[in-house]
């Protein structure tokens, strides 16, 4: 117990140690997060009028970001599968970064949901009267929190073992890794069902949403990790082989192609049939009754998607420069497509045919940026702690001198 407390205390202290770049980065993130907190407190006082949401478009940027991030969170699974199932060793030493990312991202998801609630002070009602299994939202609550706990356990266990200088025992984490893989698929599927199950919203009421969701997550997640790993290997002593990055590239490549294919299927079904269902899709791609706020966004996303996919299939993307550009394009394209492109148009036109557009307010943007900053802050701290600990540079023994030496003032013998 004491050892665990020391571990937590060391983690806490370690997160304040770094060079000036680290401090600058952390300060900027903290300031952004605090600005978000400020905007949130205003929203808490005055209500959701501070956002651009209306009765017509009743979900906006918060749910859009939430949707995107759920996809990103499954990145961990994408990395874990090849290692544990196919024994692809390139990835082994990077898996932990994927899982840490999942932890940070799920926390962001939960924050976005909290930010979206009109009565956050009543969240306890979720525990007291839970409409399970009828409401898909309750499934999502279980899926997300379960995934958070699983990943926290896996990462926490591995890092704590390294800290204690012992070898992790497979039976304490391998079964959880397998559960987490299945669970990762469930979090997107359940999140997609959240929307798909609504008969009154034809734009969502389509079976292709869940597979598209998976495909885009399989692309955006590993793309994000490719970029993160390069930063990690530049600023820390952690070694990441190019092979690991190229394995990830292959995952992104295939996922992007499938994603694009599914997009074509969807667009064809909507526009060739040209039924009443097409109104939302028409609003998204071409505008409706002269309202076209989303048109530039979605075409940017389409262009970026196509560019990223083309780059990824070319051999040139084996070079890291090109690969990074492709990953960045894919991440942004999918953010637009899964966020603005999936959530907002379902509300335009309303079920009664009214066209009201949604424009996020500065408040809303500040809260979104704040949550992103907070998530990045968490992730930076996680990486900051895990790199030296996993490298064996910081262990319990080193902290208190040599092994088998009585710790002064503690009266405990270390193994």
């Amino acid at each position, binding site marked *: 117990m004491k050892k665990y407390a020391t571990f937590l205390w*060391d983690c806490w*202290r*370690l997160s304040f*140690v*770094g060079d000036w770049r680290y401090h600058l980065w952390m300060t900027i993130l*903290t300031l952004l997060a*605090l*600005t978000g*907190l*400020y905007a949130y*407190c*205003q929203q*808490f*006082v*005055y*209500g*959701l*009028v501070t*956002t651009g*949401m*209306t*009765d017509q478009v*009743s*979900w906006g940027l918060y749910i859009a970001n939430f949707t995107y991030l759920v996809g990103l969170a499954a990145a961990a699974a994408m990395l874990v599968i090849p290692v544990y199932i196919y024994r692809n060793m390139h990835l082994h030493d990077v898996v932990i970064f994927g899982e840490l990312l999942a932890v940070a991202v799920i926390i962001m998801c939960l924050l976005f949901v909290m930010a*979206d*609630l*009109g*009565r956050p*002070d*009543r*969240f*306890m*009602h*979720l525990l*007291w*009267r*839970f*409409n399970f299994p*009828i*409401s*898909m*939202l*309750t499934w999502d609550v279980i899926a997300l929190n379960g995934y958070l706990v699983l990943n926290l356990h896996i990462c926490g266990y591995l890092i704590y073992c390294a800290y204690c200088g012992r070898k992790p025992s497979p039976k304490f984490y391998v079964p959880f890794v397998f559960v987490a893989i299945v669970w990762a698929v469930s979090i997107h599927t359940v999140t997609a069902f*959240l929307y798909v*199950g*609504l*008969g*009154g*919203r034809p734009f969502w009421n389509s079976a292709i949403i869940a597979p598209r969701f998976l495909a885009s997550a399989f692309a955006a997640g590993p793309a994000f990790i490719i970029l993160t790993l390069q930063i990690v290997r530049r600023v820390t002593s952690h070694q990441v082989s190019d092979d690991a990055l190229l394995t990830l590239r292959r995952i992104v490549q295939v996922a992007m192609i499938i994603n694009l294919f599914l997009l074509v299927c969807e667009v064809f079904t909507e526009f060739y049939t040209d039924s*009443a269902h097409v*109104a939302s899709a028409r609003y998204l791609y071409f505008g409706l009754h002269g309202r076209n706020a989303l048109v530039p966004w979605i075409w940017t996303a389409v262009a970026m998607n196509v560019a990223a996919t083309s780059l990824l299939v070319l051999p040139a993307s084996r070079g890291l420069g090109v690969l990074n550009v492709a990953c960045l394009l894919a991440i942004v394209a999918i953010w637009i497509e899964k966020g603005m492109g999936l959530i907002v148009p*379902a509300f335009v*036109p*309303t*079920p*009664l*045919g009214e066209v009201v557009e949604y424009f996020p307010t500065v408040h809303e943007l500040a809260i979104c940026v704040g949550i992103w900053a907070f998530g990045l802050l968490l992730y930076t701290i996680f990486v900051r702690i895990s790199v*030296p600990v996993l490298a064996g*540079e*910081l262990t319990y023994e080193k902290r208190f001198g040599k092994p088998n030496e009585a710790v002064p003032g503690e009266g405990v013998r270390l193994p």
Partner: protein
Amino acid sequence: MKHAESQKPESSKPEVTRRGFFAQGMAAVAGASAVAAAMSPLRHLTSGDIPTLEEFFQKHYKEMTAEDKEQVFNRIRTAVGKRYRTEVNLADPPPMDGVEFVYGLNLSRCIGCRKCVHACVAENNQSRAPEIQYIRVLEMEKGSIDVETSDHHYDPPLVPNPDKYYMPVQCHQCADPPCVKVCPVEATWQEPDGITVIDYDWCIGCRYCEAACPYWARRFNFTEPEIPADQLNPNMSYLSNRPRQKGVMEKCTYCLHRTRVGRMPACLEVCPTGSRKFGNVLDPDSEVAYILKHKRVYVLKEEVGTIPRFFYYFDERGSRYAEPIAPADVGGDA
């Protein structure tokens, strides 16, 4: 690595530690004040915004015993009475046995005057600023019944426009309500008489039900609702028209505080053309049962499959428009 240095036993370098301690102290103070500054908007919270222990632990409507209810209702009576400086008559009429309410609307007669819209706002204590309305009257193109060709914001000096017809839409009290299915906390449910209600004290404001409703019948309190004290309707019930709070959902309840005690909904009473018919569909002698049996009936979005308890019907002899009249105040149209 830097951190290795900082892990050295503290006694070995006292000055550094003291300086480090001072710097850490400063940083902690700066951090704490930054957080305090970020949270400063909270000082605008009024006492009503923070739930009391009693409110925090208030049970779900269906779990309350008779005593619990009395206690809660008394609290609400006092709070609402104090806020609006009036005597409040808060009741909780139960659904009647053998009654299932159904609403019919005559599309041949409705002239789109929006009197129902405003009578509803007055009856049900909706917020006036911003104004929340449960009924939306669509001005429809003749020759089409597609809501996407409708005009929601028509504003002529006189109605009806002879080239149009009018279709008011409000909650359809679906028999298979998607709004109830999706609510994660069961804050909204269907009563035995077919009315879907919301426990405003239980709703967490996730707006999932609003996304699920195919009739766009739900309204959310994006901010603290405002009702001038002299416009409050003091005859209210827990599940229908008592004043709502910020951050919760609301919707039409077929005026259950009136209809469960034998009166008609406010929108029906005010309608100058008699386009609205309301009653118990289980009673074969009721008007609605007669209309359903004998008239041409149209169910909006029947294909969505929610089985509405609200239907539209037509007069066989065509339209019976009354003399043109001035519409009710349309300025506050949301």
